[in-house]
């Protein structure tokens, strides 16, 4: 396989919005009333997955043609916060990169390709706020 490690997407800007946090907190059954009453609530731990709304096709670190999206499974997802998680009202600048790629033999034969994709979220001044780390797996046959 061609080595995609180090491939980067274009930076994109994300506004952390109160209404989106409220919607996300409701969808994930949060009970903390601060999501509804605080004018600047702290984002829930997996909220940055909604960065998809702000990304552009050029933001992806993986060339759409590099992998077979019909065979992609989400293996792991991690968020690391270098201080308090983002709050409503913050502007973040995000950028994706391919941290690592590797292969494993599948249990039913064939080769599975693993891609570890990191999205860095920084303040406009460049301070690192959070990292999202996704491990996606391209299975050797149709995902099941």
């Amino acid at each position, binding site marked *: 396989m061609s080595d995609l490690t180090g491939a980067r997407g274009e930076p994109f800007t994300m506004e952390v919005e109160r209404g*989106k946090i409220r*919607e*996300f*907190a*409701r*969808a*994930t*059954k*949060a*009970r*903390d009333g*601060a*999501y509804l009453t605080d004018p600047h*609530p*702290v*984002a*829930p*731990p*997996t909220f940055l*997955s*909604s960065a*998809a*709304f702000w990304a552009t096709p050029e933001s992806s670190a993986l060339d759409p043609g590099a992998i077979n999206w019909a065979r992609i*499974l*989400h*293996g*792991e*997802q*991690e*968020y*690391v*916060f270098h201080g*308090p*998680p983002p709050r409503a009202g913050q502007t973040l600048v995000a950028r994706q990169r391919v941290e690592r790629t590797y292969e494993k033999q599948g249990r039913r034969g064939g080769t599975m390709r693993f891609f570890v994709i990191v999205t860095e979220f920084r303040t406009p001044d460049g301070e690192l706020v959070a990292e999202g*780390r996704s491990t996606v797996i391209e299975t050797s046959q*149709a995902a*099941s």
Partner: protein
Amino acid sequence: MTSQVAFDPAAVDVGTAIPDFVDSPSTRTDYVRYQGASGDMNPIHHDEEYARAAGFPSVFAVGMLAAGILGTYLADLFGAENVRRFKVQFREQSWPGDAITYGGQVVAVRDGEADLELHATRQTGGVHLLGWATVLLPPAGGS
């Protein structure tokens, strides 16, 4: 939803369990609400015909939904501002009607922070996802 159980993050130690949260049986509406909130509109989680054509008996849960519920539950217990790391590994699929139990325990405590191991488990006992987290703890004796 279950009633709120008293939980004191200032009193946790290695081995302290977080109270189980037994969610109501999951619905397609839960999936759709999460997909709208997150922006992941993969039809395999809401379009019955699409899911069957792909070889599945029905739509199935978005893994990030349970990850999100586990994450907000952790934030409800320790304070959203205190979460420093949250990771999940996706295991077996979850299906409409599943009642998922969210729980876990503290596995390490050091310098005002704690590591937890977490899980989201189906009513069958099958593990839907495993989780790991690091949270800041309030000062001992604080309120």
